[in-house]
C-alpha cells in the first residue's frame, strides 16, 4: 500500500473507532491483497510507510469477496466490480483474506 494511502487510513483510524471502520481492498492478486490487509491490521509488512509497526487491527475485505458483494447494491456491483470478479481468482483472494482476518 503506497505511503499516501497508509497515511489516509492512519488518519481515519485516529478519529474513528476501529469497530466502525471496514477497509475495502481492490488488489488484483491474493498476494497484493494480503500485503494491504496486513498493513491495516498488523502494520506495514514492508516497514516502509506510516503504518510500519502500527497495529490498527482494522477489518478488511476484498471487493470480490461474497461478504462485500452481498452488502452492496447488486447493479452498482455488477457495473463497478462485475468484470474484475470474472477475471480474478476470487477463491484464492477470499481464502487469503480470511487468513488476514484470522478467521
Amino acid at each position, binding site marked *: 500500500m503506497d*505511503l499516501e494511502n497508509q497515511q489516509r487510513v492512519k488518519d481515519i483510524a485516529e478519529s474513528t473507532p476501529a469497530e466502525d471502520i471496514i477497509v475495502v481492498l481492490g488488489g488484483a492478486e491474493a*498476494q*497484493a491483497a494480503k*500485503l494491504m490487509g496486513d498493513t491495516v491490521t498488523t502494520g506495514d*509488512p*514492508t*516497514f*516502509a*510507510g*506510516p503504518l*510500519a*509497526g502500527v497495529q490498527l487491527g482494522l477489518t478488511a475485505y476484498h471487493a470480490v469477496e461474497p461478504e462485500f458483494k452481498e452488502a452492496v447494491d447488486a447493479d452498482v456491483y455488477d457495473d463497478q466490480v462485475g468484470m474484475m470478479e470474472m477475471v480474478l481468482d476470487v477463491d484464492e483472494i477470499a481464502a487469503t483474506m480470511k487468513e488476514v482476518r484470522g478467521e
Partner: protein
Amino acid sequence: MSKKKVVHYINQFFAGIGGEEKADHEPEVREGVVGPGIGINAALGDDAEIVATVICGDTYFNEHMEDAEAAVLEMIEKYDPDLFIAGPAFNAGRYGVAAGAVTKAVGEKLGIPAVTAMYVENPGADMFKADAYIVNTGDSAATMGEAIPALTSLALKLLKGEEIGTPDEDNYMARGVRVNYFADDRGSKRAVDMLVKKLKGEEYETEYPMPAFDRVDPNPPVEDMTKAKIALVTSGGIVPKGNPDRIESSSASKYGKYDISGFDKLSEADHETAHGGHDPVYANEDPNRVLPVDVLRDLEKEGAIGELHQYFYSTVGNGTAVASAKKYAEEFAKELVEAGVDAVITTST
C-alpha cells in the same frame, strides 16, 4: 552482557521520506530504528539492537558515490557499532548498489561484520557479492517477511564469530571463495553418481555451477558498407611487437588501443600475439590471421568498405572474466562511436 550495537542503512523510500521524487535526499542519521529496522530489531532479539539508522537517497548516493560513501561511513563510525546491516534492497537497483557499496566499505574500512540483502538480479548483487555478504531475497518488498529472518540469521552468526556455512546453507550469494573439504566419495564416483541421476531424470546438484550469461540482440545491418567506417576489435591478443602495455597472456586486466594507420598489413616484424593457452606460432608468423588488417585494406581499396578505422582495440580472451570484457567494451565502444565508426568486426583466436 549488554546488547551489541548495530547500525542500519536504508534508502529514502524505506525511511518513509518518499519515492523517486525524494531520491536525491542527502545522507542523514537518526537514533534508533526506522522502517524495516523495526522488523530487524525484533529478529535480532536479545543479542543486538539497532542504535542508529543511516538514510540516504538512492539517486544522491549513486550520483555522488565517493562523497556519499565517505559521509555515510563517518556517520556509521561515530556509533562504534559491532555489526552493520544494509537493506534489504530487493530488486531496487540503485538501492542495491548503495547497500552493496556501503556494506563493502564498512567491512573493509571499519573492520566489523557487515551484511546486506537483495534480489539476485539486482545490479548491486553482481557488483558486490564478491566483497560483501549479500543474503538472497525475493524481488519485492512483499517478501520482507522472509528476507528479515534470513538477513538477521547470517548477521548474528557473523556477529558471534560463528563459522559461516556454504552459500546454500546460509542463504547468501556465492562470493567465489573456495574452501577445501573432505568428501566421502572420490571425484569419479561422484561424477558417475550425478550422471546416473541425470539419466534417470532425478535431481542432482552440480559441484561446478556454470555462470549464466546474458544474450545480446544483434544490431541492425549496416545499410551501406561502401560508406561504412569499420573498426577491428579482437580478444585474440594481437599487440605491437614487444607488447608495450604488457597485456597478460591470461585473465587480462586491461586492453590496448593501437594505431594501424601506417600498416597495409601486419607482419611478424611489427606485431605479435600476447594470448596464452594455445600455440601462438601461426598468429605470430602472420598476425593478419587473427586481426585481418590485410584483407580489410584490400576491401578498402576495392571500395567494398568505406574505410578502416585508424585504431584497433585488443585484449586477451583467455580466462578473462566476462565482467571485465564487458567493462573494456563499454569504455572503448564510446570512443568508437565518437570516432564515427559504423561497424566493428570482432575476432578471436
